């Protein structure tokens, strides 16, 4: 396992584009995880108030709510990690180095392992980073303190980790199917933030569809399944009931997609002639 991961490490260690992207990613994550306070300050300066309540006292960094809040915001960033995966797999495809790796003495399964471990390692680093950012922000702003609060609801970090792994596996699959990295990046980006959310909104709200079976079906679309892992948390600050747990249904549908992606990758790798 270490061997498979080291193979990937040797490939990216001296790859400047990788370090630029991972740097951008962690910076974006830091801004998202820590920028909430600044954003509320900004709202206050703009004269916004919530029914007479000063925005800066909204306790977004209180343990344990902080985990759901930053996991929810941070998960949007996974698109950047998917770009890294796309470029990494695409390199091995267009430079024919996947074939060379196989010729030199790995099996296609080992190739799959090295990429998957690479994805898991990035997801783990990202989760750890978010955890530390949460601890730091929480220790500064949280009104409550103590292990009971701090480590409560950390399942959202696990959901965040899983979300990244499954999403990046989708990126891995797409880069095996389509050879043009630029095209996949744009297509995946648009699908994730526009096509599927718009389609979902239409099917759930349009008069013709909303009473039929479609609203039920769209919940199981690939992106919607992943996004449902971490429910929208900010409703609680306007006294709405929210799901403050990882929904079981989302775990199941994400896992079904994950298995589909993995099997498709194995199928393609075994079927395809590397020419």
């Amino acid at each position: 396992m270490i061997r498979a991961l080291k193979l990937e490490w040797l490939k990216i260690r001296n790859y400047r584009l990788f370090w630029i992207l991972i740097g951008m990613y962690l910076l974006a994550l830091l801004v998202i995880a820590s920028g909430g306070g600044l954003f509320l300050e900004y709202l206050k300066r703009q004269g916004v108030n919530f029914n007479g309540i000063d925005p800066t006292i909204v306790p977004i960094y209180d343990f344990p709510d902080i985990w759901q809040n930053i996991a929810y915001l941070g998960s949007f960033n996974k698109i950047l990690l998917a770009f890294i995966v796309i470029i990494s797999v695409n390199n091995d495809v267009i430079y024919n180095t996947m074939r060379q790796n196989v010729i030199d003495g790995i099996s296609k399964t080992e190739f799959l392992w090295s990429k998957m471990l690479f994805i898991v390692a990035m997801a783990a680093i990202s989760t750890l980073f978010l955890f530390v950012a949460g601890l730091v922000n929480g220790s500064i702003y949280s009104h409550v303190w103590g292990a009971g609060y701090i480590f409560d609801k950390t399942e959202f970090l696990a959901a965040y980790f899983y979300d990244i792994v499954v999403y990046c596996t989708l990126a891995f699959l797409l880069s095996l199917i389509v050879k043009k990295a630029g095209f996949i990046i744009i297509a995946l980006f648009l699908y994730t933030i526009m096509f599927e959310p718009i389609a979902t909104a239409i099917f759930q709200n349009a008069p013709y569809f909303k009473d039929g079976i479609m609203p039920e079906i769209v919940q199981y679309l690939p992106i919607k399944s992943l996004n449902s892992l971490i429910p929208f948390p900010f409703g609680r600050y306007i006294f709405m009931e929210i799901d403050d747990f990882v929904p079981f249904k989302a775990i199941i549908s994400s896992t079904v997609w994950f298995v589909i992606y993995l099997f498709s990758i194995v199928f393609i790798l075994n079927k395809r002639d590397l020419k």
Partner: protein
Amino acid sequence: MENVLEINNLSKRFGRIQAVDKLNLTVANGQVFGILGPNGSGKTTTLGMILEVVAPSGGSFQWFTDVKAVEARKNIGSILETPSFYPYLTAVQNLRIAAHIKQCGTERIEPVLAQVGLFDRKDDKFKTYSLGMKQRLSIASALLSDPPVLILDEPTNGLDPQGIAEVRDLIKAIAAQGKTIIMASHLLDEVQKVCTHFCVLRKGIKIHQGSVVDTLGEINRVEVASQDLEKLEKCLGSFPGLESLQKTGNSIFVALKPDFTSTEINDFCFKQGIVLKKLVTQTNSLEKEFLKILKEHD
């Protein structure tokens, strides 16, 4: 002799095209085995299948005895068509990846780079290399683990004449160490110079297999000429090594008995007072044989 590779009924079909058709082949330890054939005859597809990058439609193959193919590949140095490396990495960094996969340690990286003449450029990125240098790097990569078996697909592709000569010498030197080499080429001259055995593929079917020496036959024909051809012919009639004699235009072809060479003819004629103005040892070329074989199967 122990077999390095055994291929049984290996086939590959791409859509309507039968690229390789029920190929049977055995390569023994220590052979320098040439796979010949015109373009599109299935040479590279065959090599691709035994290296598991092309999935066979049927048949099987076995490397060594009782070794899984993926483990066997770690002990095989291979060049398959175009050199494939990470363009953003240097030669050394690229070879480190190959060494990691082959689990062979990195201490041979610099020696093999020196061996193929890339030592001065070892820390330059692969994308800055010329085609010939890229080809040299793939040779270096194939030699990296000091493997007992080499697979070379058109190893002199893209090299300059000097490079071709160097690679040829390199292959001979490697073969002299008792290593097995499987080489695909359409450069017959190249195969004739380095190979001990060969087979000919045509449209995916093996149409000939044999040793290079057997196929080319015993070469013992000499072409001679002098100022006075009549006198020379008469004189050669009493040459002890004469098997037969054939006069054509302005030279005479002499077939020699075994153990006689052009030296004895020259010596003999000189003693008879005839100075030869032409003395050429005839060689059969693989090219002629190859074309003959192809024609026979048309």
